[in-house]
């Protein structure tokens, strides 16, 4: 949807028509305002503006529509530099006030900007009539909020547990137990210091169990890198970007929707914001400077891949994100809560299979599945209640290996 609108911008004639239409529709537009889409679009603003609260890079937005008229705002939001250069007094003053940092141009339609403004007017909330359609979590109900908080806490605990698990040192345990095991055996047969053999037997038994467990855990982790959390060349925090600034995953990892790989954003994507944002909350300028350095020198940043699939596995992001309608977190975990990204799942074949076996496909919704005539019949008859990926061959080798 959004994409097509943006693409139309290249065509001046269509632009004019669209603009005219937008003006005509202005009175009705407010009805459409405060949609979830606006919330999504507002993520771009959020990087620099708060609605209320502490000032960020740009001014707070509360009451913006009262301060300025809509036409001016549309012009300014779309290309602030132009407005400033045109000598608009208000704009020049604003520019000076905010340390001569211009607001970057935005590729938004009039419709979308009006939508965002309405959203701001509503105090950064989506209009009531849309709330029902939205995620339950966003509900105002206190009970739900509490529940969600509890959930989040639980997740935090789980994450901490994962981290602890990741840090468990099996190697040392293994060596210590192995030494005890050997010493016991030696004593049992040769030195015979301890006369009661049941001591030996108990120790040997326990040692065997521990060794077995360690071997099992290590062997199943072989070739996996669960809990892998490498240090990246730039201290980039998903917590700050995704949670605090509320940037959508797909903003940076844009190809996840239509390509095999989700893609690591190229430096110019970083520069979209960091052209202006030159200081971070935690690291100050040190980390952000690295991006600028990369940008200026022309050497791309060498990030370290966290989620690696072996080359004999074909995984397609668009299949899962676009037609599978999966949430990123389902495989990547709560990345938005991580300062340093960690691989949460083990990404093993068994893990893939389990998901394929339990996850339903968009069987009724997606026209594609009409080809499965027999299954459709059974689905209609109610013989089959839910259709999982596995039932349509999601467990076949060739789905991932070719």
């Amino acid at each position: 949807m959004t994409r097509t609108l943006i693409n139309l911008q290249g065509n001046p004639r269509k632009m004019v028509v669209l603009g005219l239409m937008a003006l005509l529709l202005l009175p009705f537009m407010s009805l459409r305002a405060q949609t979830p889409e606006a919330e999504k679009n507002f993520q771009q603003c959020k990087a620099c503006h708060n609605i209320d609260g502490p000032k960020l890079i740009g001014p707070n937005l509360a009451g913006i529509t009262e301060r300025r008229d809509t036409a001016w705002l549309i012009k300014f939001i779309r290309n602030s530099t132009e407005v400033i250069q045109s000598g608009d007094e208000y704009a020049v003053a604003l520019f000076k006030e905010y340390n001569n940092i211009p607001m970057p141009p935005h590729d938004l339609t009039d419709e979308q900007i009006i939508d965002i403004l309405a959203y701001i007017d509503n105090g950064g909330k989506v209009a009531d009539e849309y709330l029902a359609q939205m995620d339950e979590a966003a509900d105002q109900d206190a009970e739900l909020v509490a529940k969600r908080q509890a959930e989040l806490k639980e997740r935090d605990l789980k994450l901490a547990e994962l981290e602890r698990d990741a840090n468990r040192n099996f190697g040392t345990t293994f060596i210590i137990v192995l030494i005890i095991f050997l010493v016991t055996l030696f004593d049992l047969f040769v030195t015979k210091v301890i006369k009661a053999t049941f001591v030996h037997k108990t120790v040997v038994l326990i040692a065997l169990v521990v060794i077995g467990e360690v071997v099992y855990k290590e062997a199943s982790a072989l070739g996996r890198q669960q809990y892998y959390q490498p240090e990246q060349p730039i201290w980039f925090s998903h917590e700050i970007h995704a949670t605090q600034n509320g940037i959508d995953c797909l903003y940076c990892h844009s190809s996840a929707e239509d390509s095999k790989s989700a893609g690591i954003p190229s430096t110019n994507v970083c520069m979209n914001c960091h052209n202006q944002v030159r200081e971070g909350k935690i690291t100050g300028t040190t980390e952000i400077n690295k991006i600028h350095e990369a940008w200026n020198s022309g050497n791309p940043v060498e990030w370290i891949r966290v989620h690696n699939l072996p080359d004999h596995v074909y995984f397609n992001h668009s299949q899962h994100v676009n037609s599978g309608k999966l949430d990123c977190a389902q495989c990547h975990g709560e990345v938005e809560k991580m300062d340093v990204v960690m691989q949460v799942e083990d990404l093993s074949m068994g893990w893939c299979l389990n998901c394929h076996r339990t996850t339903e496909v968009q069987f009724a919704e997606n026209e594609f599945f009409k080809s499965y005539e027999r299954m459709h019949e059974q689905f209609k008859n109610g013989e089959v209640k839910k259709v999982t990926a596995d039932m349509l061959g999601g467990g076949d080798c060739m789905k991932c290996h070719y």
Partner: protein
Amino acid sequence: MEPKYFRSLEELKIDTRATSIEKPAGDRQFIFEMQQELKKTTTASRRDFLKVFGFTVASAAIASSCEQPVRKAIPLLIQPEETVPGKASYYASTFFDGIDYCPVVVKVRDGRPIKIEGNKLSSITQGGTNARTQASVLGLYDNARYKEPAIKGNAASWQEVDEAIVDQLNAIKQKGGKIVLLSGSIISPSTLQLIDEFFAEFPGEHITYDVLSASAMRQANLKTFGKAFVPDYRFDKAEVIVAFDTDFLGSWLSPVAFTKQYSKNRKLTDGQQKMSRHIHLEGAMSLTGSNADERIQLHPAQEKETIAALLYELGQLDGRSSGKPVSSPVDVKKIARELYSKKGKALVVVGTNDAESQLMVNAINEILGSYGNTIITEVHLKLRNGDDAAMERLVEEMNAGKVDALLLYDVNPAYDYPQKDKFLSGLQKVALKVAMPVYEEETAALADFICPDHHYLEAWNDAEVKTGYYSLAQPAIRPIFNTRAVQSSLLKWLGKETDFRTYIQAYWEENLYEMSENLLFTSFWNKKVHDGIFDSGSKEAMDGSFDAQAALAVQQTVQAGSADQISLVVYPNVAVGTGKHANNPWLQELPDPVSKACWDNYISISPRLAGELGLEDNDTVDVAGIGELPILIQPGQEYKTLAVAMGYGREKAGIPATGVGKNVFGQLGFANGNRQFVKFDVALEKLGGTYEVARTQSHHSMEGRAIVRETTLADYKENPISGNEIREEIKKHLKTLYPKQVYDGFHWGMAVDLNSCTGCNACVVACSAENNVPVVGKEQVLMAREMHWIRIDRYYKGDENNPEVVRQPVTCQHCDNAPCENVCPVAATTHSNEGLNQMAYNRCIGTRYCNNNCPYKVRRFNFYDYNGADTFKGNRKDPAEMTTDLRRMVLNPDVTVRAKGVIEKCSFCVQRIQDKKLQAKNENRQLRDGEVVPACAQACPSEAIVFGNLNDKNSKIAKYFADDRNYHLLEELHTLPSVGYLTKVKNTTV
């Protein structure tokens, strides 16, 4: 192919936000990174994890650190809009190498062209390709490419080179010297205009030199039509085709287009009940000859008298005087009657580069009313416009010191000119020698300046292959090396600052734009770049006169030739052709469609002559002083005709080509202004040694088994099941204790129309390109370890001396009761719910049991690490240098690169199936019939391969499977193959 994916770089450049400036670095940067990435071995873009898993993880992880290697992910600094990582884009382009012409679509993945497909929009080739076109993408990544300009062998900058050349050119101009641009056939109208401009500025001439020339035909047409040209042939309109030594399906003029036309006229599907009748007369055994309904052996020396006799007989039938009666070794009366009965729908062609034969054939075609029906004189084929006589003249002039500068474009006379020494001595007398080659070659090595040309996938170009049929070529990648298009060089030397793209655009705006109906030139241009094709519909002006006198005069003088002398035919094969692509390992390993030999040239000899001389396969002989070459007994060869392939014996090329076979260009003669490809009365000396020729098939008889089922057209019309009667019997016996597996949704199937398959091998190369099939080299082929996933079985039937030839492409049959699946102990090969026989390479431990138990023997084992997928150095076997970083850029990232010790086989191009399914899913629609096309079917110029969903009762494949001609290979084993074959029908009826 969805046209909507065809996108031009240019078009998109307009779309990008940074319109004003050229993108910094752009694709070059991309390639640079790619190379950087390649150096880091275990990066994400290569799918060769097998190597890691094959050894390092299993052992090293246990042994030491239990740590995975750190993998870096390097994003682009600026992501070009048109490249989404992990997603392929397609660009229309045009393949032309001086011999073959083919409009193509280039698949580009992560900035690298990785596959060539035929362009379905072309009205000429209609999506067909041939082996060389398919293989051309590997040429882009040839290790032996010239990487930068050089002066006398030393690397130089373009500026230095340009300055030096321009100085010298100007000096020659000052003194009024002669500059010669020697090139192969040029079909680019803009380039031709540019050359004209060049010679308007500088004194001299442009000489076209073709290794395979049609100069005799041009001469003949000059006499009959008053114009030297090559007409357009319409094999699809011909109901009777009589061909004298014309390999029109393999190498004559425009084989892809002819194969398309020819096969269209021989299909018996979709209710068609007619097929053409093809009579072929030749001495050597060619691809086309082996496809004929009737093949008549004719000693090359007797060809002319046979044509003369045919002309006479036809004249008699038509009631007009047509020379004198001539006796001929062939029953021409029968042929004449057959031809005459289809007057207006008949076609006679002769491939010999002999003006007299061509003249007489012109007269024959005139009697038959072919002109305007099966031969279009208003449309000229612009291929093969080399002038043999001019080339001879040039060499004389060079030796006489009359040539001051020689610019070499797309020619390699130091290798392929018959009188090589004469050329070389002449070359020494030329003051300024500028070579503009793509690959390392013999001639360029002697040049003063090397101005390396782009590979065609890196360059802008246009083409007019036939009058009014235009196509465009656009770069699919920024130049990998510091090369420059020849046209840009010429522009530069002319002192023009425009680049060649602008030049082409200007040419098109000036000359072609008016023929279109579009309003704006930019939209016209963008559309044409997008499509790659423009048919203007313009015609050549012909006055319609036909002068038969010259032909009749020739007919009177024809002398009878002797069939007793041993003659040697020099022919281009479908793989390396004239040797231009000899450095392409895919082509070197491509088995010849007739002899099934690869990696060498050899003397083909008839069984009878070999028997008389006591020669066996692989015995070495010396024929006409070529040097030591092995013989290969070729059933079907005329008794005293020998044949040898050109294009081998390269001296200065890359690793795969150098030293393979012998250079036989020295055998080409020159007579009556035309190059002669047949040498008469040659001496054959047995040398007593042996030299093994690698062949992919060593047994040539079907042993009476119903493998390729055949019938005749008459029988077929009477009973469509004819030839396939045994199938009913077999079906009756198919009993099973087990319930049949049900395939809901998709059940993929493939059908091969044996009547359409000509055995051209395009599918084999396409498959190799699509599926990263390794090249194993001659030594391994000798050990019968070639890896091709699709092979074309060729059997001889009947008399050894003049056998019938049948062919059958065989891939994995994807049996529903697959014997291979049952026996794999580790479940590495299993059946999918879409009826595919799946192979999980990484699970395979290499017991080869599946291979043994496959009745079709389509499974291939990686005896060594042929692809560089293994970390274990000792495993590597790479005789053709296919594992260099550059070569590996051609690998398809969607297909696993197999390591040593695993079995592989045809997957029905599962990556394409999955891709199209996903596309349909993302677009919320059902998959359409014909949307999924495996590489082999895509490449096939004769549309012999049909692929689709058997569950869809309306699909083309379901109709093919329901055809009476359909049968399955070894169906009696109850393997339930998903590949069907339609019986071969021969039109033996008169």
